[in-house]
C-alpha cells in the first residue's frame, strides 16, 4: 500500500516537472516568432525607406532633365541648331502646303489647295 502511494506521488511529480519546460519552450517559440516578425517589419520598412529615397532621386533626375530639355526645343534653339549645321529650313508657306480634306463620297481623298480650302471654310463653296 505504502509502495503504491510512493509510485503514484512520483508520477504526479513527473507530470508537474514536464509542464514547466513545455511552457518555457512555448514561450521561447513565441518570442522567437515575434522577433522574426519584428525583424521582417524592420527590413520591409528599411526597403520602403530606401525605395522612397530612390523615388525622390529619380524624380529629381527627371525634373533636372526636363529643365535641360525644355530650352533645347525652343524656336530660337532649333533655329540656331539648323544654322550651325548650315540647314535652311522654315515652315512651308501656304503656296507649298497641300491640305487634305476628308472625302464626302468618293474614296481616296481629295487634295485641296489653300485658296479653295479657305473658300470652303468660309462657306462659299
Amino acid at each position: 500500500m505504502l509502495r503504491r502511494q510512493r509510485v503514484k506521488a512520483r508520477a504526479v511529480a513527473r507530470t508537474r516537472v514536464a509542464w514547466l519546460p513545455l511552457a518555457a519552450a512555448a514561450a521561447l517559440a513565441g518570442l522567437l516568432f515575434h522577433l522574426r516578425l519584428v525583424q521582417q517589419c524592420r527590413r520591409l520598412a528599411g526597403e520602403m525607406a530606401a525605395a522612397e529615397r530612390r523615388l525622390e532621386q529619380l524624380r529629381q533626375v527627371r525634373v533636372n532633365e526636363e529643365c535641360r530639355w525644355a530650352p533645347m526645343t525652343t524656336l530660337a534653339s532649333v533655329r540656331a541648331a539648323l544654322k550651325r549645321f548650315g540647314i535652311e529650313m522654315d515652315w512651308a508657306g501656304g503656296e507649298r502646303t497641300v491640305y487634305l480634306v476628308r472625302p464626302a463620297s468618293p474614296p481616296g481623298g481629295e487634295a485641296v489647295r489653300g485658296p479653295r480650302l479657305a473658300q470652303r471654310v468660309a462657306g462659299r463653296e
Partner: protein
Amino acid sequence: MSEGFHRVRFAFVAVVFCAAFGTVGWKLTYLHLAYRQDATPEAAVELPAMRGRILDRNGRVLAVDTPRFHLVADPQAVNEAGHVEVLAGLFGRLFQCDAVAFEEMLRQPASRYQRLRKWISLEEADRIRAMKLPAREVWLEPAPRRHYPLEELAAHVIGFVNAERQAGGGIELALDRWLRGRDGLRKVIRGRRLGEIADRRPLDIPPEEGATVELTLDADLQAMVEAALDEAVRQHSALGAWAVMVDVRTGEILAMASRPSFDPNRYNEAATDALMNRAASYTYEPGSIFKAVTMAAALEADIVRPDTVLDCEHGLWHYCGRPLRDFHPYGRLTVAGVIQKSSNIGAAKCAVALGEARLEQCLRDFGFGRRLCEDLSGEASGIVPPRHQWDPLTPTRIAMGHSIGVTSLQMVMALAAIGNRGVRMRPALVRRVADARGRTVRQFAPVAEGQPVCEATARTMCELLAGVTQPEGTGRRAAFPGYRVAGKTGTADKPCVGGYDSHRNIASFMGLVPAENPVFALLVSVDEPQPEHTGGVVAAPVFRRIAEEAVRYLRIPAGDLLPHAVPLRAEEGPDDADWAVM
C-alpha cells in the same frame, strides 16, 4: 544520488532558465508593448510640397520646381578635425573659384552652421556625395527652387516665385492656390546614430504636389512675338513695346509679350519698370486704333453706311470752339475712306452723330472700363469716365482714341469680337488645371460675353479694315502676300502737363488675319519710337513680321484676294453713293 538532490538540481535549473527567459521576455515586452514615446528622440520633419508646373498649350515646360541644394558645414567640427584646407581646396576645385573664400568661411571655430554655397545643382550635389565627406562636418541641405527653363520667354505672363517661395506676379500669383500644393508632415523616431528607425513613424502625412497649369500660350508664337518686339525696340530706339495675340473664335491668348522684360530666374536683378506687363497692366490712350470701335458702333446704330460720305474739312474742323486736325488734310471721304486714311475729323463726326448714350453703351459692350481676364494678375481695368463727366468735346476725342484709357488686351479683344462675327469672347489664359494625379480640376471652355455688334456689321467692319492694308491705306506695311489683313493703325500722343506731347507717342497696329475669316487678332504697340513715330511705319512692319510667320506656323490656308466692294474716296464712288455730308 538521492532523489532529493535531483529535485533541488532540477528546481535550480528551472529557476535559472525561467529567470533568464523571463528577463528577456520582460525586456522584449517593454520594448514592444510598454514603449514610451517621450523617452525616445522623436523629430517632426516637414515635407515641402513641390510647386505645380506651368506648361504652354503644347506641354512645353515654362516653370518647374527643380532640385537644388545648399552646401552647409559645421566649422567647429571641421576645425577640430583639421580639415579646413582640404575641404576648402576641394570645393575651390569643384566650383572653380577661389579656395580662400571657403577657407575664410570654415575658419570660424565658434560657428556651428555655415552655408558655403547656395543653390547648387543636382550634378554638383552628386559630385559632392561621391566624395563621401564626413557627414558631421559637411552636408547638403535640400532647397528646391523655382526654375524657368525658357528664361525671359513669357516672363510677364508667368510671373515669378521668390526665394521664400512666395509668388510674385503673373500666373504664379493668380493661380497660387492651385500651384503651391500642400506640405506634408512626418514624425520620425531617430536611432542611436540619428538615423530614422523606418518602421516607427508615429505620423506620416505625404505632401501633395501642386497642380499642373496648362496655359493657352504657345511658346513658339510667343518666341516669334518677342523676337519681333526686341527687333522693333532696337530698330526704333523705343522705350518699350508690347503685343497680344488672341484666337478670335475662342478668346484664348496665344501670345502676350512686353518689353522691357526680365528673367524670372533672376527676378531680383530686374528693374521695376521691366516687371510690368504692359500688355495688360498699362492703361493708355490708344489713338486711332480706337476708330475701329467707334465706326463699328456707328455702323451698328445705322448712323452711317460704308459708302456714306463725310466732309473731312480739309484737315481742320472747329467743334465747340476747339480745333480738331487730321494728320493729312482730306476733303470728302466715304466711311471706308475715313477708316482707311484714319481721319480724325471723320471719326469725330460719326461719334457726334452717334450720340453720347450710344457711344458709352458701345464702350461698355466692347468690354472697356473693366478687367477681362481673371487669371491675369495685375490687369488694369482702364479708364472710361461715366457719361455725366463728359463735356461736349469728349465724344469727338473718344472717337479717335483719346480721353479714354484702355489696355492692349481690351483693345485686341474688341477687335477679336469684330473678327468673330460680333461675338465678344472672354479672354482666357489657362487651358487646364490638373492635379498631381493628372485629374482635371479646371477646364477651359470658350465663353461668349456678349455681342456688341451684329454679324453683318462685323463683316462690314472686317471689309473696311481690310482697306487699311491696301496700297493707299495707312497700314499698307502690314500687308503680306497670300493673305488679307484687316487692321488699323494708331499713333497716340502721350499726355503731358497741359496737353499732349507730339514728340512722345505710342505707335500701334492691330489686325485680323485672314480678313475674310479671321483666325487670330494681333495688336502691336511701340512706346516712344524714334525717329519714325507713326503706327503705320513703326508698328505695322512688326505686325507683318509676326503675322507672316504665324500664318505658316498655324497652317492657316492662304486666301484669295477679294476685290473691294466699297469705294474708298467719294470722288471714286458710284453715282448712287450716299452723299450725306455731315
